[in-house]
């Protein structure tokens, strides 16, 4: 039953003042931006004009093998253009076969495979290539889209920003069993082999169908258990390697595929007119934007993900996760990674639960034999359990930040750092209580004094500092700082690295003290030596960062004194306000104390080294950087074979930055009147872009 509300609407509207905006609490600016506006040529999808070919496109038309190949190839490529930040409506769903099949499925009574048709009328002729082969391609493609959209809804990556799952209110075959679609695809492969064996297009079409068939099994890979230790993986990685070969072979056919004649009207903006669409008018994204490189990248990512099968200790997982975050990946791999790493049952890789993993990570680093973990006292056990539960929640968030896009990673870390700061306070009070009330002594000698070692607190502090250091360095990587800010930002991060080195040296001393005390217990000695190895590795990493940061600072001070870099005069702000704004993120952090602007000014005002001194310091720093990189590479190459090459490439980029800074930095006699700086990033580490002096 309908009600005519015209008069009521006019009566209500007449009461609204002309220049008054009425803002509903359910409506905000973002929604306003997306509101459709009738008559607006950029927003009104009703104003889309379709060509004759689009209007009269006939899905029941008999197609040749080449035509079916063109449609299949363009459709599969469209999936990857969709996943490259486009929407379904301008990629996969703009394909008329996909639209028609989905419409028939969605409006069908039972929503089953029988309703997945391109047309509902009787076909006048035998049309197996379209009705069976092409249909199975479309079915496989849409099932894959459904999986991808599901991953976006799952929340491991950002909806819209990473994957836009909006499907114009169409169900993407979610009610059809993958096994049914697999049978359709298998039938098509057999049919093609029997009937078109010597046709060149047959092989390529079979490759497309094979890829789609493999994609139907993707979820199986997410659930594979990767136990810690030497247990063999109950899964053959060769399946994925075989898939990669097919994908690479398909990519090799690109020139041929690009020469296939297009079928006019097969891709159309018409779906934006016909179906529920809350987006502005969007032009179609050509399938040719994808050359199957994304497909290959995705499959390579999947193979690389399974390198974790060689893990033997918690640090392997940490290196694996860190390594994943250091490199760009296909968005689908980013969506799958956390599902593979952190399972629904609360376990890491289907094996130990996160809490157990966290404890083993702490014990394996600096808490081995710590009373906090070994005490049988019920009260301590209870308090520790509460603390570890809190820490686990935050640790989980920390692990979930690594698969995010590079912009989001930094934002996630900014949130997490505050939690780690609170946890550090809790850890310290817990350990002091253990020492004072329960007389659990765990001491080290610090400058001739016996002080509590506080291993729990040290671990949290070390983690917090590593997050803070990452936040600042990632700012360089994301190009957030202007060159005139470089000095203050490197100076700030140097302060944090210095603190990190102090805490790591303290941890090292603690382990050495324990080693001395337990030298007659070989079992303990082995474990403690493993811990020591990890700490030495971390020390090498932060010493390398320290030296590179000092190198940048020395160069920046020269550039400033030569007036090649100057702080501009701002009409509404000044250097102090800018400095404070940058420090805002860490404002509430208690330890280490945050430097003030006057601290920075004092540093800037301190005596600068002469050019000779500068050169000699640079040589010392280069030596230190090289030594520490050698230590890092030798330990990383023994990383149980997990992402070795990527680890080495990552470390080598630091070396390239060192060379770049030395070659392109300030030289004697330069001045601001003649020279300016240009930032060079390509080929250098994102944390240490190179400032090149160039003539104005």
């Amino acid at each position, binding site marked *: 039953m309908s009600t005519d509300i015209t008069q009521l609407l006019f009566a209500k509207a007449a009461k609204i003042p002309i220049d008054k905006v009425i803002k509903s609490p359910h409506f905000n600016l973002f929604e306003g931006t997306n509101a459709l506006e009738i008559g607006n040529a950029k927003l009104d999808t009703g104003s889309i004009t379709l060509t004759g070919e689009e209007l009269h496109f006939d899905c029941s038309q008999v197609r040749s093998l080449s035509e079916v190949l063109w449609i299949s190839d363009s459709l599969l490529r469209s999936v990857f253009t969709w996943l490259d930040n486009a929407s379904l409506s301008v990629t996969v769903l703009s394909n008329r076969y996909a639209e028609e099949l989905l419409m028939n499925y969605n409006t069908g009574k039972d929503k089953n495979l029988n309703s997945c048709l391109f047309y509902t009328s009787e076909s006048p002729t035998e049309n197996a290539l379209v009705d069976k082969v092409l249909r199975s391609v479309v079915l496989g493609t849409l099932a894959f889209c459904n999986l991808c959209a599901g991953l976006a809804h799952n929340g491991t990556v950002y909806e819209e920003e990473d994957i836009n799952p909006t499907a114009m209110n169409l169900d993407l075959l979610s009610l059809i069993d993958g096994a049914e679609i697999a049978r359709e695809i298998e039938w098509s492969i057999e049919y093609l082999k029997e009937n078109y064996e010597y046709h060149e297009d047959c092989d390529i079409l079979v490759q497309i169908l094979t890829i789609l068939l493999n994609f139907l099994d993707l979820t199986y890979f997410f659930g594979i258990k990767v136990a810690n230790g030497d247990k063999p993986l109950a899964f053959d990685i060769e399946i994925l390697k075989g898939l990669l070969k097919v994908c690479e072979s398909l990519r090799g056919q690109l020139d041929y595929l690009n020469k296939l004649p297009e079928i006019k009207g097969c891709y159309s903006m018409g779906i934006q007119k016909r179906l529920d669409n809350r987006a502005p008018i969007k032009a179609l994204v050509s399938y040719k934007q994808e050359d199957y490189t994304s497909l290959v990248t995705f499959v390579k990512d999947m193979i690389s993900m399974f390198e974790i099968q060689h893990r033997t200790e918690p640090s392997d997982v940490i290196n694996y996760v860190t390594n994943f975050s250091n490199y760009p990946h296909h968005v689908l791999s980013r969506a799958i990674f956390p599902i593979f790493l952190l399972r629904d049952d609360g376990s890491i890789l289907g094996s130990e639960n996160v809490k157990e993993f966290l404890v083993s990570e702490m014990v394996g680093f600096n808490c081995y034999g710590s009373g906090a973990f070994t005490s049988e006292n019920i009260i301590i056990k209870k308090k520790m359990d509460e603390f570890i539960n809190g820490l686990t929640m935050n640790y989980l968030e920390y692990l979930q930040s690594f698969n995010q896009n590079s912009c989001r990673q930094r934002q996630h870390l900014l949130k997490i750092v505050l939690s780690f700061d609170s946890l550090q306070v809790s850890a310290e009070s817990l350990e002091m209580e253990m020492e004072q009330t329960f007389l659990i002594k765990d001491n080290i000698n610090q400058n001739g004094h016996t002080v509590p070692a506080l291993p729990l607190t040290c671990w949290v502090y070390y983690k917090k500092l590593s997050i803070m250091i990452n936040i600042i360095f990632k700012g360089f990587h994301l190009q957030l700082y202007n060159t005139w800010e470089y000095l203050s930002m490197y100076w700030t991060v140097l302060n944090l690295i210095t603190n990190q080195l102090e805490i790591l040296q303290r941890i090292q001393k603690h382990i050495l003290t324990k080693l001395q005390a337990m030298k007659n217990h070989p079992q303990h000695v082995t474990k403690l030596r493993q811990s020591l190895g990890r700490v030495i590795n971390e020390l090498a990493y932060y010493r390398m960062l320290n030296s590179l940061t000092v190198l940048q600072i020395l160069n920046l001070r020269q550039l400033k004194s030569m007036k090649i870099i100057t702080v501009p005069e701002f009409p509404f702000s000044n250097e102090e306000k*800018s400095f*404070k704004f940058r420090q805002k993120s860490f404002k509430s952090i208690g330890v280490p104390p945050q430097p003030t602007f006057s601290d920075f000014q004092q540093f800037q005002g301190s005596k600068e080294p002469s050019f000779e001194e500068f050169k000699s310091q640079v040589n010392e720093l280069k030596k230190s950087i090289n030594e520490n990189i050698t230590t890092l590479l030798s330990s990383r190459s023994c990383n149980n074979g997990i992402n070795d090459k990527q680890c080495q490439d990552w470390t080598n980029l630091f070396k390239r930055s060192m060379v770049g800074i030395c070659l392109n930095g300030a030289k004697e006699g330069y001045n601001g009147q003649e020279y300016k700086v240009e930032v060079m990033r390509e080929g250098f580490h994102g944390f240490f872009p190179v400032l090149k002096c160039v003539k104005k």
Partner: protein
Amino acid sequence: MGQRNHLHHIKSASQPLIQESFPLNEHPAMVQISYSQLDIHNESDIKALQTLISVDLSEPYSIYVYKFFLNQWPNLCYIARDAETSQVIGTIVSKLEPHKGTRSRGYIGMLAVKTAYRGQGIAKKLVRLSIEEMIKSGADEVMLETEVVNAAAIRLYENMGFLRSKRLFRYYMNQHDAFRLILPLTERSVVRSTFLEPLKDPADAGKLKDDMDLLTANLSTSSF
């Protein structure tokens, strides 16, 4: 009531605030540019402004977006005109609202200058006028987003003291990342909102109340 609230900020919409002269790229003769706040009743100016922005910016905006900005913050919308032809050749559209209830945050939503008039500092002038007006209205900071590839815009804002606070992944419909730029104006801008006292601005509270009353009145008399 609403009209008075929104219009009392406007000094004299029909009179230009500032007039500047410079040679236009395509015409060697000196061109005079006048700057004024938007007159919300001037439909042709609003239309011209919309056209200018629509041609210039990659994002499509509906009438609701314009209404949202222009009706609530007409004082923060400036227009640059070719004084000779009276043609609107540049505009800036902004707003000023409490952010997390703790600081007053200005936002530059749109800025456009007609191609033939670019390179003469018109955009810079418009931004300055808008920020100065925001400062008068108690802004603690000003924010905006711009494409990472828009070097000219980034340079313009950074020369005024804007800092890149965040990089936003594939923020625009054309797939480009954006930088979120913030200009810190007061001490409140450099303190985390968690540690700030809530804003106590009766004008803001009153404005919100007016809107809510009107909304409630409309909803309560609605029978559908």
